[in-house]
């Protein structure tokens, strides 16, 4: 199965085994992490770029210390 995940509420598709960084790439947002932004889950926890994804997961790119 392909995996459906959401980056900043935008739906993207990745392969099983792919990680947070792949979802960001698919959404064209990986470059933003090189600046002052980080990735958070829908509960406001920071997640690593190598973090595993699961179906329907929602992740958000936010400026550091400006959580959900």
């Amino acid at each position, binding site marked *: 199965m392909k995996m459906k995940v959401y980056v900043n509420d935008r739906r993207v598709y*990745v*392969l*099983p*085994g792919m990680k947070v960084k792949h979802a960001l*790439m698919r959404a064209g947002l990986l470059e933003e*992490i090189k*600046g002052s932004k980080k990735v958070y889950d829908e509960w406001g*926890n920071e*997640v*690593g770029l190598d973090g595993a994804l699961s179906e329907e997961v929602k992740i958000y790119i936010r400026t550091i210390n400006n959580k959900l």
Partner: protein
Amino acid sequence: MFVLCVKSIADDTVMKRLNICFSIVLLFFLSASFCHGQSVQIRILHVNDFHGFAEPYKPLGSDEMVGGIANLAGRANELREKKPCLLLSAGDMIQGNNWANLSRGESVIELMNEMRFDAMVLGNHEFDFGQDVLIKRISEAKFPIVAANVEGLGQLKPYIIKNLEGVHVGIIGVVTEDVPISTHPRNVAGLKFMSPVDAVEKYIAELKKKADLIVVLSHIGYPVDRILAERVKGIDVVVGGHSHTKIEKPVKVGNTIIVQAWEHAKALGVLDLTVEDGKIVGFEGHLEEIRPKNDKEDKAASAIVQKYNEKVNAVLNERVGEAEMDLDGENVRRRETNLGDLIADIMRHASGVDVTIINGGEIRTSIKRGEIRVKDIYSVLPFDNYIVAIKLTGKQIRDALEHGVSAVEEEEGRFPQVSGLTFKYSPSDKRGSRVKEVLIAGKPMDSDWEYTVATNDFLAAGGDGYKAFGEAIKASRDFAIIGGMMKGEKVVYSDSGRWLRDAVVEYLKEMKGVAPTVEGRIIEIH
């Protein structure tokens, strides 16, 4: 017993017996009052998703050095002295960084033994070196490795029970069900992965008779941990991993406490529990962020890090083959090169597909004629990318090639290196209309026919602006594992546990010598 003693009060002997009986009764009541009503403080220290990041490093987007396992071990030593303590790992320890990969995880297990871990759950990446290696690593571990939802690997335990100051802590392990589709299927042949929810429900019923507290050591990811906590009653604590989540304070879902300690030894999780009558009556937790401080290092852990650094250097210096000519990695962003051809050919060979398309930017340097060492390949392919193969139509291949040559003037990394196909393009034509004749296996490419195409996970995820692979993934329906290989409507190969550079090293070791030439796969016309 007390009544019997009173009846026998007749002489000195009987008096002595009475004293003994009284003492026993007193001890009984004292013991009962200790167990009932007296609180016990225990501590759980936890790490997850270490992935062999033994030394401090700068994460993407950060200028600060973080992590360092010797510092984490030093802090763990300090914290475990304060209270009865467990040190737990929530998986994905032995694969990832070169420090782990080049000893196939042996370095990590030696380190964990030194750190006196109490238990670890298998993560999906623990399977990446295959079952023989995994069984060896389990045999080397001086701590139990738990996974209740894996059938077929007898070396695993579903759970263990630890006794901390009279508090019996049952620890059940669960790993993601997605292991078979996130590692190469050969690594999990013959194994069955059950639902974590079903496995925990099964063993919780068994453990409740034996344990005061139930801890699930989980490698299923924080979103799924929450579902587990909602669905299964009776879990006191979930110590999680897999999603690399930085849970700064413990989260409560229903009656279950959930913790997770980020990734790469950047944090040590600390959870303090107050237990009374076999129940948690209070908790406090936090993450200790780890920074390099030489005076706080655990010396024994540091020595193991250094020992395996030396081994890594020895492996990197190993000879893998011979280049009979210079291998060109300098011009990969503007034209076909013999090194681009070689790597693309190896990817096609490894995945057994029709065609390879990769980005020239994947290849970072050249190799001079002469001996090839492991470190040369690691310099050529420094990224942690792996091989993926997807079915693309002829039209999608053409679109990918058009994108690949669309910025040749700027020498961007998207310029393709290919195998199994040849094409002509005109850089003076308008972008999007540059690709001319495309041949696959010597025949004109059919726009409607589906071909199997190997690439790297970077392009498959849309890296360097490639969209064709993403369109195919979006259109894909389902996977099946057929004959030990992942087959699907569109995805035919994915080996996320083996970096491309390691596949190239293995190939070169088999071939001994290579002499690739530029074959006219990419022809510039005007």
